[in-house]
């Protein structure tokens, strides 16, 4: 336990350092793309727990993301909505305005999405394969349509003027040394990745994989399969909600149009591209698919062919699926041990894996 906490603290410090480094030396546009990559990583890694580990094909991630985005923005934003009686836009001031309030709003978004995960999971997780995919797709669409008809959060126009938060370390104004979106996003990336990595290697994670490999056999082994599936669903939904909140505050606008089922498909494509079931794959898939359209901007600009970007993007996907149908990583993970094997003759002293006895002591505390 203490060990995990220390790791987390080190990780947060690295995030802070990265944030300051980026803000200081790297172009704002590149930082923007890196931030989007962070949001995509959370989405992909969390969906990997549902689709990859547990083998439940969900197409509802955009729905959970939408819930997180709207719930968190609901707390932090001055709500401006149309009053049909006076034909004017009315504004309600934001409920929270501090960084802690922002974190609370993000968590609230995640929790709301998780609750939705339970509500959707209980009836739909009896379904399998294609049926589950369609049921979750339906869920995503229902969320979007409900939001569209909810005038208080802007209806079809969505919310604009979502604030960006920062922790000022020193200085003031534009030159201030401050932790901003990058810090928040990558802190959650690290939390999500570390938790998911732990989960994957725990007994619990093995149970999830057992459900994926053979549900009947898992049941016979005494694994409560339905509860496992619901757990995976709720876990994925929570982080999708967090990603939604971060997304909203990064873009400073939320519109229902951001959360169509195409968004869910995009996340699924990240997984498939990286290798379904591999967390490293999910991360690489998220990076590639977020950076690629941006990297192709200059190509499009040079060629002066509007739309060529999406053609190249699609071609890359098609070629990859032809030549590597299992995805970049398959179900493998990239780890230090693998790297060590790749670099012959070099040995790292000290045991990398924690001793089992140590770990057990930790959990008992």
């Amino acid at each position: 336990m203490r060990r995990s906490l220390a790791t987390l603290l080190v990780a947060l410090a690295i995030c802070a350092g990265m944030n300051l480094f980026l803000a200081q030396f790297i172009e704002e546009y590149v930082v923007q793309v890196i931030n989007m990559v962070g949001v995509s990583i959370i989405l992909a890694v969390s969906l990997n727990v549902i689709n990859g580990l547990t083998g439940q094909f969900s197409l509802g991630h955009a729905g959970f993301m939408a819930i997180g985005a709207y719930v968190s923005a609901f707390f932090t934003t001055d709500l401006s909505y149309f009053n049909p009686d006076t034909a004017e836009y009315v504004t309600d001031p934001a409920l929270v305005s501090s960084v802690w309030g922002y974190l609370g709003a993000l968590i609230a978004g995640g929790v709301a999405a998780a609750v939705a995960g339970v509500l959707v999971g209980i009836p739909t997780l009896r379904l399998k394969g294609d049926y589950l995919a369609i049921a979750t797709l339906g869920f995503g669409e229902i969320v979007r349509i409900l939001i569209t008809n909810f005038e208080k959060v802007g209806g079809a126009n969505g919310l604009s003027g979502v604030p960006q938060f920062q922790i000022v370390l020193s200085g003031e104004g534009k030159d201030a040394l401050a932790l901003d979106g990058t810090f928040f996003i990558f802190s959650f990336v690290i939390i999500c990745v570390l938790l998911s990595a732990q989960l994957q290697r725990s007994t619990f994670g093995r149970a999830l994989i057992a459900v994926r490999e053979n549900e009947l056999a898992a049941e016979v082994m005494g694994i409560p399969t339905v509860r496992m599936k619901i757990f995976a669903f709720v876990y994925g939904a929570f982080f999708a909600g967090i990603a939604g909140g971060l997304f909203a505050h990064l873009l400073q606008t939320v519109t229902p149009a951001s959360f169509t089922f195409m968004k869910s498909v995009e996340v699924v494509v990240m997984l498939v591209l990286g290798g379904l079931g591999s967390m490293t794959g999910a991360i690489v898939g998220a990076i590639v698919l977020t950076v690629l359209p941006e990297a192709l901007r200059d190509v499009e600009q040079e060629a002066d062919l509007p739309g060529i970007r999406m053609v190249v993007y699609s071609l890359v996907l098609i070629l990859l699926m032809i030549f590597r149908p299992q995805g970049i990583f398959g179900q493998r993970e990239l780890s230090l041990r693998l790297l060590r094997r790749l670099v012959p003759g070099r040995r790292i002293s000290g045991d990398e894996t924690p001793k089992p006895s140590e770990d057990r002591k930790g959990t008992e505390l």
Partner: protein
Amino acid sequence: MRNALTLLIALAAVTFVVLAGCKDQGNEAGSGGVTEDSVKLGLFVSTTGAIADFGLATKNGADIAVSEINAAGGINGKQVELVFYDIASKPEEAKSAATKLATQDKVLVGMGAVASSLSLTAAPTFQTNGVPMVSPSSTFPPVTEKGDLIFRICFTDEFAGAALAQFAFEDLGKRKAAIIMNQDDPYSTGLANYFKARFEQLGGKVETTEKFANNTSDFNTQVDNVKSATPDIVFAPVYYNDITLIGQQLRGKGVTVPILGSDGWESPTLLKNAAKDLEGCYFGNHYSQNDPDEMVQGFIKTYADKHGDKPSSLAALGYDVVYFVKNAVDKAGTFDRAKVAGAMRNTKDLKGVTGTYTIDNKRNASKPITMLKITGGKVEMVRQIMPEEVK
């Protein structure tokens, strides 16, 4: 545990290398996008995704304006270089394209987007970086409230909705309206809201507001409800593909009252598919292709020569937005962004293809809406409603 952490750091490092680009510390103050012999203007619209047609038309219009300006010696002696990015109808792309234009390409002015939600996403980025942004065709009122550098050269939904209501009430003498709108589309809901407010303020009554979702093709429910409300006019602020079906189904059920629409109706295919059903109907638009004005006809001819069909309103607005920027730079006499924005704020009676307009104190264009009537299989101009008529 440590593996995962190292992995993360490694990945972060890879990302850095892939994206490596060093921040340009020497940020030249104020004047933007200027090199020795050219000036960069940014354009960001969706040329892929759900509303690609509108973005392509806008880009085509802007391209024509740029080549005309360059042939005539450029802006303030410098050739115009149009930096164009597709934003794929997605807010995240609008944000990154805006950031790229404002901070990497350092354009003088950003022009875009078409959809209001995308303009709303891009606006704060331009505002905080001190780069003026001009939307050619985002009609949702809050867009220009994002800061004192955000402009638009089209009318707002507020004006269009009120003008259309007034046209129905006063010009056509209608008292009982029914509305059919697309609930997923902010443009449609915005116009419907403002129409209703104005129409009822004038003393008319909106009997029913019927909503439908994107990609609806069966409008029977809505049509039945409209029919039982017995209106004397139907207001349908929807796109051309929807009005084709709505018109057909309304007429099929025996609802023969005129339908009033908005600029979303405009399309080369409208008359081909729905001339009979929409006979005697009206819609408000940014300009009329039949306007005998020399500038309008000149633009239409150039566009048709190049692209084969007549330019839509979006194309005309794309053309006008470039000239709006040129006018501001000419007036300011410098490429200093703050001064250019100042000149934009003081734009008065600038003549464009889409009418003569003045920028008001909310940085919106105050300009006429052109009322068109479908009659005898043709679109004819009825009149222009001037901004001062609508209070």
